[in-house]
């Protein structure tokens, strides 16, 4: 699985309240999540996410189990998130809804291209290639199916 996008840099310990605030959760209307994604972190971020690879600091997605956080990021057009580490519930949620996550420490240069290959396990930015921590076999299978819903549609 390959992909590429423009780097959007964010800091460490970004919690899911910052990704999508509690006040926007009571809806199934995804357009509301897309409109308000990262609003409390940086209101200008949402407009830069289409086609982006988010490059974050450690512990991305900590806090609440709200799956809306992963959905909002994916629906906003983010191709993948790269971070040295992810909070575990966010990690599972993202894979389950088909948002690729890449565990790796890379230097982020806002707007510059980032390419990756999940199967081969590398990410490339600023002319430098980094090898990434591989996903488990189960997670690769879920991601390849496009998420857990599709996985169970075909296996169930």
């Amino acid at each position: 699985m390959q992909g590429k996008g423009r780097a959007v840099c964010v800091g460490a310990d970004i919690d899911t309240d910052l990704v999508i605030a509690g006040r926007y959760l009571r809806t199934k209307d995804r357009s509301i999540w897309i409109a308000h994604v990262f609003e409390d972190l940086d209101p200008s971020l949402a407009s830069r996410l289409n086609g982006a690879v988010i490059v974050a600091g450690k512990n991305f997605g900590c806090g609440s189990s709200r799956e809306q956080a992963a959905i909002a990021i994916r629906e906003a057009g983010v191709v993948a998130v790269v971070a040295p580490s992810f909070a575990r519930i966010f990690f599972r949620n993202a894979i389950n809804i088909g948002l690729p996550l890449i565990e790796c420490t890379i230097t982020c240069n806002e707007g510059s291209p980032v390419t990756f290959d999940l199967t081969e396990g590398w990410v490339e930015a600023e002319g430098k290639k980094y090898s990434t921590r591989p996903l488990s076999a189960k997670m690769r299978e879920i991601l390849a199916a496009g998420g857990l819903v599709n996985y169970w549609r075909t296996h169930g």
Partner: protein
Amino acid sequence: MGTLSERILNGSTGEYVDCCVDRAYVHDGTGVLTLEAWKNMGGRGIQDAAHLYVLFDHIVPANNSTTATLQHELREFACSSFLQFSDIGGGICHQLMSEGIVLPDEIVVGADSHTCTLGAFGAFATGVGATDMAAIWKTGETWFRVPESIGIHLSGTLTGSAEAKDLALTYVSRLGMDGASYQSLEFVGEGAAAIPIDGRLTLCNLAVETGAKAGMFYADDITVQYLATAGHTVQAQEPEPCTYIREIDFDLPDIVPVIAVPPRVDTVKPVSDLAGLHVDQVFVGTCTNGRYSDLARFARVVKGRKVAVRTIVVPASRAVLEKAIRNGVLMDLVEAGCSIGTPGCGPCLGAHMGVLGEGEVCLSTANRNFRNRMGVGGEIYLSSVATAAASALEGEITEPGVS
């Protein structure tokens, strides 16, 4: 032989295991997406409805018609599919599961990050998202990577006005917000054995604030007795030799009242460092500190006096509320000027009632002080119940007296 996680998940550290889930629960927030994902998976089959719970606690009663409509849909589904259902006013999901439902050695999965609370009973309890939960509704199973465990050795007993919450914030600050990512915390030692169930629930509750997958106590005599009052006969768990990835010691007599300073749970300072800081609101409740013992402790301090700032008290469950009424605790709180909310999460997640205004400061007994969580521009300091009570009387952060 092994850690509690290895024994319950029946695998070795690092191994991926498929497990049957003993109990699984969602609340009004995550349940809506779970139901949607389950329908999208084909919407056929519910595994073992007797062990699937839908517990309304996050926005109760509904704050507007959108929430009400979503809740209506989930309520209808839960009842028509014979899931175990608790409507508004029943209480916080984790609290309800702790009132004689979760048993030692069980695998418990909740669509909420603080599901780790239930490790207090020697269960493997962890949070997942909505789609994972939908697959559990469908299949009764899920997968885990068996976590490494950190041994947290406790010795002695808490003294003065220090509470389990102070120990919890202290360990979170020691480990940091990702200090235990993907790992499990096991609270062990004679100090752990002396902590009552309520304190264990508080300690396990904050495990996820270190990134941990689970926080666990071994089921012992205290657990056996607690569950016996709920009509369950269970066995204590004997610790076995095992390998911890890391070991940390706490001498409980050294623990002092502390506060987590916004916007991070791991920025923790002694209350004395912050004494005098003005607060606009005090909030007592949540799955961390909304139990009967918490309300009673708060009432002991404020009884016969008046709170100096707006103070919201939300019992964690109907059982807590009933006991507070029966024992006169509620009257003491109301007479002292506290506002009482419907059992549930209350203002914890900033979705309704008790939302903070720009620049306002709340002292809360909850577990999270993330930026804007209780309202845009509001700041949340986290403390024990005793510190919250002393501060409510003064209108500023105040060290608790020994009571």
